[in-house]
């Protein structure tokens, strides 16, 4: 990206629209009272929204592999910390 990439405005608008739509969906799903699934659904939808912001608004999609690698390493570190914490808490 030596010359700054020119992404059409319409793509940003579409991403924003999807984000607002997912916000509506997550509120609707929370109202459905589907028990344990509601936690899963809320986290899943938040992850989708976060990914949209990272890849389109934060341009991760147009960056080199080095950026994606750094994010992957951070996420894997996080996964390990979470797994170890829950392994500790649930078998106490």
């Amino acid at each position: 990206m030596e010359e700054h990439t020119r992404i059409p405005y319409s793509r940003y608008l579409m991403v924003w629209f999807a984000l607002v739509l997912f916000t509506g969906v997550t509120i609707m799903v929370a109202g459905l009272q589907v028990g344990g699934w509601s936690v899963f659904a809320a986290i899943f939808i938040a992850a989708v929204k976060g990914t949209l912001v990272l890849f389109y608004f934060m341009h991760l999609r147009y960056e080199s592999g080095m950026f994606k690698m750094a994010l992957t390493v951070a996420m894997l570190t996080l996964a390990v910390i979470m797994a170890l914490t829950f392994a500790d808490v649930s078998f106490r």
Partner: protein
Amino acid sequence: MTAVAVPHLEEHHDPEGSRFGMWLFLLTEILLFAGIFLLYAVYRYQFPEDFHYGATTLHTMVGAINTIILLTSSLTMVLSIAQLVRGDRRGAAVMLGATIALGLSFLVVKIFEWGDKIGHGLFPGSEELMEHTAGENMFYGLYFGMTGLHALHVIVGLGVLAVMLVRVARKPRTTVRIPAPGNVALSLASDDGRRLWDDNADDDVDGVEITLVYAKNEELTDKEVTKLENAGLYWHMVDVIWIFLFPFLYLIT
């Protein structure tokens, strides 16, 4: 008289390296918030009823409005960058101003929301909460802690955006410094030999500074794109954190 060659426009500029540095910083921020999310998850697992009750006392509608405000501010942020990339400084400044206005609205909503809870005596260490269960105390402690740390990031982000607004709204400029100790009189001429300006004063200085303000300069505008992109990355990261805070605090009941 000596002519001084000024190597001002040859300075090193590495947009990708600059953005990567910002990303590394943001990853540490994400891990900071992730640690608190983990704390929330563990206590929610330990006190399911209290966290369920706590979440029902928060107003989903207020949280949803703030979510839409932040999402829209992220949109105006990318549009601001996109316009600066196309060389439109005015358009970029307008969109950046909109981003700042939306960020301020988010904080105003947050103040009313906190005020409402504090008005009901629900804040960490309050007499009212002392009579509630340990789980509820954890919930409100985490609610104020997490939204408070997030709001702090919004405030910092707004400061960064305000600095960028000043840089983008004014004409592109570059400053060169020439060391010239002694008593000097200044005379300024353009490359083609036209006399632009003379100063016959005999001032005692250590050096002089010349600021060139351009009506239009694509090279300098391009350098500001990198700075605006990094400010934007920070702002979007604040948005991503809220995207996770909203369902965790307001929705999972």
